[in-house]
């Protein structure tokens, strides 16, 4: 997926130029009425919207401008830390409309589904149209996800909306091949473990680190590295005397990066000239439940070249997927573990593939 041109402004959006709540409602009311927007000089983005109307081409029913936005005031309140479209004023025309399209779609979906979580999972799962994997959101924060380049998502979402004049958006975003809607399910694998490495670029005295830091284990006869643990995020690191660190136990890419930074900071505080270089994720593990029992003996007969099933050794079936290069452990209860991925998208892609294979083995 090509990174969208709007990948850059992400950091600036974390500072919200507009306050939330009361003023937002006032602003929403104002821009619901196109003429009020023009009259109100305080709104900086009135110039952006006046030629097209508040939401431009996205009003499904011109006579009922409220329908698309009914949920908006409600959503704006519920989404703590999320951006209202008001904040996107400094972006160009194209970008704001793209994002509003996403926001409007999202707001349309959310009332229909379980509103319990604001996480990506809730955003990903409901419509079951391949929205999830394609969003490619590395962050779980809403603010980031709004802005993440997701051309295909926007393209896919737009046909669902009962408007014909979403074409301007379609022409902007290139079409990327997506998995067909029928194969996708509402299940999203949950990340359980991420392994990453960093380089501190300085030699370390392991004995001194083990002496002066509380949360460490060091047994040079058994293993030539210090084992250090931190509580938040709950992770473990292996610190080698060459200055390289292996960090395990995080449940997301950002947490892994934060944990690695904390370990580097601990070493720094101990007096070593540590830097934070070459952060790289080497392994990601995810798991989920397909919900139905699986005949492992049948599966190994059908896909012999990929499967390894030895009940005498291990109760699960080991499926070595070639593309993406991920190892999948499949159990009779329907629980699936995916490991060996370098990116989150690989886990999702592997699960899509394995789900389509497992569906064949569902009885009845």
């Amino acid at each position, binding site marked *: 997926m090509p990174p969208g041109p709007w990948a850059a402004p992400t950091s600036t959006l974390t500072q919200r130029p507009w306050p939330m709540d009361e003023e937002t409602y006032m602003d929403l009311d104002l821009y619901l009425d196109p003429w009020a927007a023009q009259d109100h000089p305080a709104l900086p983005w009135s110039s952006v919207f006046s030629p097209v109307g508040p939401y431009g081409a996205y009003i499904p029913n011109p006579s009922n401008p409220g329908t698309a936005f009914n949920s908006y005031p409600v959503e704006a309140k519920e989404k703590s830390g999320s951006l209202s479209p008001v904040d996107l004023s400094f972006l160009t025309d194209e970008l704001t409309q793209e994002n509003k399209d996403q926001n409007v779609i999202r707001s349309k979906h959310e009332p229909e589904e379980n509103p319990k979580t*604001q996480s990506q999972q809730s955003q990903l799962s409901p419509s079951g149209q391949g929205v999830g994997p394609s969003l490619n959101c590395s962050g*779980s*924060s809403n603010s980031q996800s709004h802005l993440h380049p997701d051309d295909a998502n926007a393209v896919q979402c737009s046909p669902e909306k009962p408007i014909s004049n979403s074409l301007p958006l379609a022409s902007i975003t290139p079409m990327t091949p997506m998995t067909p809607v029928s194969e996708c399910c509402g299940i999203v694998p949950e990340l359980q473990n991420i392994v990453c490495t960093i380089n501190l670029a300085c030699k370390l005295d392991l004995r001194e680190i083990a002496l002066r830091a509380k949360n460490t284990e060091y047994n040079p006869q058994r293993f030539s590295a210090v084992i250090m643990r931190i509580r938040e995020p709950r992770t473990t690191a292996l610190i080698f005397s060459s200055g390289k660190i292996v960090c395990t136990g995080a449940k997301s890419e950002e947490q892994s990066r934060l944990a690695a930074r904390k370990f580097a900071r601990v070493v720094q505080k101990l007096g070593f000239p540590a830097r934070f270089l070459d952060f790289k994720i080497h392994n990601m593990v995810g798991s989920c439940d397909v919900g*139905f*029992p699986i005949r492992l003996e049948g599966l190994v007969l059908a896909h012999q070249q990929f499967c390894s099933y030895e009940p005498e050794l291990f109760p699960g079936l080991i499926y070595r997927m070639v593309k993406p290069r991920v190892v999948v452990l499949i159990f009779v209860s329907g629980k699936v573990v995916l490991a060996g991925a370098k990116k989150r998208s690989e886990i999702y892609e592997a699960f899509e593939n394995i789900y389509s294979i497992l569906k064949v083995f569902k009885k009845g």
Partner: protein
Amino acid sequence: MPGGGRCPDCDSTELVEDSHYSQSQLVCSDCGCVVTEGVLTTTFSDEGNLREVTYSRSTGENEQVSRSQQRGLRRVRDICRVLQLPSTFEDTAVAYYQQAYRHSGMRAARLQKKEVLVGCCVLITCRQHNWPLTMGTICTLLYADLDVFSGTYMQIVKLLGLDVPSLCLAELVKTYCSSFKLFQASPSVPAKYVEEKEKLLSRTLQLVELADETWLVTGRHPLPVITAASFLAWQSLQPSHRLRCSLAQFCKLANIDLPHPASSRLQELLGVLLRMAEQLAWLQVLKLDKRSVVKYIGDLLQHRHTLVRTAFRDGTAEMETQEKERQGQGEEVENSSLGLSQGKRPASPALLLPPCMLKPPKRICSTPAISTVTGDENISDSEIEQYLRTPQEVRDFQRAQAAGQAATSVPNPP
């Protein structure tokens, strides 16, 4: 000059190899006596006696093969002979060993691993010919650990890119049951416990098939299921005398080891049989329990296909509807609601699912807290300092360490 040879005529050591019309001869250079002639191979000095030399010793094929590989190949042949495998298996196993040995990883492996490799090659050969050899048997023969064996086995299958079929359950039943010592009366086996092999075999096979159909075999070690099934089969053939005998006693009688999971497999199988018995009208009134159902195993097996269909609901369809309901309502669907939906019968048809799905989950899988971590947050100094020892603590720790080391190094008083 060839070593060790002496001319039989003049007893000189000056023997020269010479060829006479392209036939190599050993000739004494003093008296001209021909010591040896016309022998194609002169590998051994006592070839003067024109003794036969075996092909493998004369061709030098073993000179190219390292001693450890030779030892391994010999081990492969020995294991095949101990297991009384057909001779074709021997050659295939030897070929696999040689193939494996060509990889540097295997050549440089420890002796323990090479020993285990022998077992792996034999196992793969047996599997490919549907010969029911279990890993447990091989490990016992090699005095090897199952962990080491499993690691080497997985590695070699991947390395050689082999397609190894699954263990054939029917063949395993036949081999395993044939090893029982129950078919003839003996001092340890009273007459009432003796059973006919064919009857026991056929009933055990039916019970194992039933277990396979009702999800008791998938993902589990096959042998304990067969132990439990053969025990039930044996009991049901003469229940009046044998109901008193327990699984452990049965194993001792039959002279086999009791695998640990066999008792839980037995309970699961009895549970399945009880559910099936509820579908037969004349058994419903009897209100059977896990002991009394054994008497009617014959009848149940006779109608097993119909009974399984009626006794169990399709678990897969149920799981799907449960899944959808859970997603829609956001709460767990209770089993009682499904039970009530069945109506009159107090015990609704059970779900046909693997036992691991029927048991309640051990821990509630809570949805993880939504973290809004960006990875670039500020790390406060206080947070890092909580992990560091104060200078006083460092001194105390060092003192404690020194004291500990001194204590361990103090020599015992004489």
